């Protein structure tokens, strides 16, 4: 089987899963939809592995394969083909997406079993993965935009999965609207690039990258910044990030899928894929690195104060994606993708462990109400600790290597990139603090009622269905963990998924240990071989050693700080600190006022404009002048004609005569 055939089949599997689950929702009973969905993904993963193995079998020069299924439209030189590009980058993404998604499906298999929308959930989940695969496999801008928009639609469906909850539907709408803004950016950016390259094909465009950079530098920069808008919206970077924490309204496996394997990594992939163009426009690349670094720090500060368990992890994702965006925009392609991969492992693990906690809490997500789960949930605790260690960058866990690799390249680039280097380490410290704040608050201390119940083998159930986001009593059981719900801790499939990810999060770093292994580097070599930036970045051993030491120290220091504040005491130090700098705390708790800023800058003016249109413009101009005016003219004209129609036969005859006389007179005068 050729690599492209395998890739097509990998694409077909989740699509088939979607169709079977969507059409068979009446006939598929019990756990069958889950089996179908998971099997489809597992098959896709197998095909991804086949594609990987087959591609490795090809020679170094033959690792960029394009396969076209059919021509969608050919207009002039523009070739909108349904074609995929199989190269190391897309194969890596395929492996990560299908691999992590399969484990998330396995987890969902148990986690969602008490939910009424079980079939619908798996149909959506399969569709999400299909869209993401389409995005990463696309060989031209045309298919990329299709996949891009599909991912946005799928995220909307899944975030507002519990459609009877107002908070969930409004979060879904928010995510969708911001993603559409990104889609517009991506499409417009494509137009800019298409204007000068004359082709939609990636490889064809990249071949001309140098000429475009030389002849149309302004247009290229504008186009790339528009592409960045698309990437920022999907990857939740400032100022398009506000949807991501709200997206936590969806079921926990969805959060894991959005954060770990699909959706948010799309922006990173896009920039990495477009690297020949970004290297031609330093300005656009700098925008990417700076926004990435800003998001990195801002999200980490918010993560320090948020009290919703899932939202802490959400801000952590934003922050980690900031690392990746900074890396791929700043020339550290392999490091960025390496971090993408390890992040997928440990973030999915953290979400699964969080899901386990949340189900033990009967749907409650607030850290303020969780304490002392260490004894009640040893397995979840272990997973959370492994994920936390990887996230805070403690050696030898995977996150350590990938994060330091990024910062190493930033440091080596020198100049103003040093600011990013320092910011990266600052955020690394904060990452360790907020991650372990979460762990200490949830697992240490006096166990709460729910934890004590669980220690005795009982599962706690909330007395009545409530919305965990705002505490509203709900009249339905949508999203409410019913009596048959499980804790991941006690369910086989979920335990397998978490265990696998825990192993991957621990050892995932081996693919690229500085000075030891260069597997990922050599694997991705064919994609980035034409990069002009990478060879100029010289690795220096002293910086490497400094980075490794600083990274370790900061990670351990962050854990120590978190332990001092939340592990030893009950967070009294944090309360005291909050009272000392109330303004700073308010800034962080209110998420740097981004929602308010966007509301004030965009939503309010648009709302005002809409009201003006509806109440003033439409009423006065459209209804008054246009519609009223036209009908008025017709009415006046018809009134005049109606007066002539008297019904007097002889008056008609007279008019006829006069008319004939006028005509004859005209002809007589003419001749």
């Amino acid at each position: 089987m050729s690599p492209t055939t395998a890739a097509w089949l990998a694409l077909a599997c989740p699509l088939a899963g979607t169709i079977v689950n969507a059409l068979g929702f009446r006939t598929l009973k019990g756990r069958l939809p889950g089996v179908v969905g998971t099997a489809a993904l597992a098959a896709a993963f197998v095909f991804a592995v086949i594609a990987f193995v087959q591609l490795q079998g090809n020679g170094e020069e033959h690792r960029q394969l394009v396969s076209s299924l059919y021509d969608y439209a050919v207009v002039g030189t523009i070739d909108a083909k349904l074609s995929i590009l199989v190269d190391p980058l897309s194969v890596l993404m395929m492996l990560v997406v299908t691999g992590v998604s399969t484990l998330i499906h396995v987890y969902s298999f148990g986690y969602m079993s008490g939910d009424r929308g079980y079939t619908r959930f798996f149909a959506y989940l399969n569709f999400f993965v299909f869209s993401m695969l389409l995005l990463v496999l696309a060989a031209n801008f045309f298919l990329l935009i299709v996949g891009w928009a599909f991912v946005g639609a799928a995220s909307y469906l899944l975030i507002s999965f519990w459609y009877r909850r107002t908070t969930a539907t409004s979060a879904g709408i928010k995510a969708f609207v911001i993603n559409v803004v990104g889609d517009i950016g991506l499409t417009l950016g494509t137009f800019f690039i298409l204007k000068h390259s004359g082709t939609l094909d990636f490889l064809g465009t990249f071949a001309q990258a140098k000429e475009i950079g030389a002849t149309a530098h302004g247009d290229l920069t504008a186009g790339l910044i528009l592409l960045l808008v698309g990437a920022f919206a999907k990857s939740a970077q400032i100022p398009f990030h506000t949807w991501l924490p709200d997206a936590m309204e969806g079921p926990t496996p969805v959060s894991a899928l959005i954060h770990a394997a699909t959706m948010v990594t799309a922006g990173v992939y896009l920039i990495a894929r477009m690297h020949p163009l970004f290297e031609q426009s330093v300005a656009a690349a700098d925008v990417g690195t700076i926004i990435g670094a800003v998001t990195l720090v801002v999200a980490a500060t918010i993560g320090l104060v948020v009290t919703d368990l899932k939202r802490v992890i959400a801000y952590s994702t934003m922050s980690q994606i900031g690392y990746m965006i900074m890396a791929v925009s700043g020339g550290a392609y392999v490091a960025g993708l390496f971090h993408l991969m390890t992040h997928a492992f440990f973030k999915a693990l953290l979400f699964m462990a969080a899901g386990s906690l949340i189900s033990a809490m009967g749907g409650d997500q607030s850290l303020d109400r969780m304490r002392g789960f260490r004894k009640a949930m040893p397995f979840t605790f272990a997973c959370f600790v492994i994920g936390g260690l990887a996230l805070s960058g403690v050696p030898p866990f995977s996150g350590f290597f990938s994060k330091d690799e990024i910062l190493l390249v930033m440091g080596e680039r020198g100049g103003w990139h040093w600011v990013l280097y320092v910011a990266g380490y600052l955020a690394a410290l904060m990452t360790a603090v907020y991650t372990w704040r979460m762990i200490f608050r949830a697992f240490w201390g006096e166990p709460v009622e729910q934890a004590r119940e669980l220690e005795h083998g009982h599962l706690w159930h909330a007395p009545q269905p409530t919305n965990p986001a705002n505490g509203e009593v709900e009249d339905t059981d949508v999203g409410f963990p019913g009596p048959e719900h499980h804790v991941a801790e006690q369910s086989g499939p979920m335990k397998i998924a978490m265990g696998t990810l825990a192993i991957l999060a621990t050892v995932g770093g081996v693919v690229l240990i500085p000075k030891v292994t260069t597997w990922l580097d050599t694997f991705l070599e064919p994609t980035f071989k034409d990069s002009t930036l990478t060879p100029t970045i010289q690795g220096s051993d002293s910086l490497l050693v400094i980075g490794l030491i600083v990274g370790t120290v900061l990670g351990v220091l962050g854990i120590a700080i978190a332990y001092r504040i939340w592990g030893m005491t009950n967070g009294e130090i944090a309360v005291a600190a909050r009272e000392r700098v109330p303004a700073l705390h308010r800034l962080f708790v209110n998420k740097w006022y981004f929602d308010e800023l966007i509301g004030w800058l965009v939503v309010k003016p648009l709302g005002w404009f809409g009201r003006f249109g509806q109440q003033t413009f439409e009423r006065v101009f459209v209804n008054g002048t246009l519609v009223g005016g036209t009908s008025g003219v017709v009415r006046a004209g018809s009134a005049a004609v109606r007066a002539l129609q008297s019904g007097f036969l002889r008056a008609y005859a007279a008019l006829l005569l006069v008319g004939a006389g006028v005509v004859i007179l005209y002809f007589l005068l003419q001749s």
Partner: protein
Amino acid sequence: MNIGWYLAVSALVFCTGAAGVLTRRSPLVILLCLELMLNAANLALIAFSRMWGNGDGQIFAIIVMVVAACEVCIGLGLVVAIFRRRLPIDVDEMRELHG
């Protein structure tokens, strides 16, 4: 003979007919006056035909007569129908179709 005389007679007859159509109120008289107008036109047609020395005008005159006969058939039919229903035979009274 000068064609002017024929045309003068034709105009005289036409104006008589037109004046009748405009002033009389009985549909029967209006139909008669219409015939006068058509015959005036026929006279002019035949005069022109004679002047140019070809028969086209005469053919047209015959066609006009046929059309006039058809018209009168319908007109008389309507008038008789109205008369049968004892409605007033006055064109000014029959104006239900006005706008």
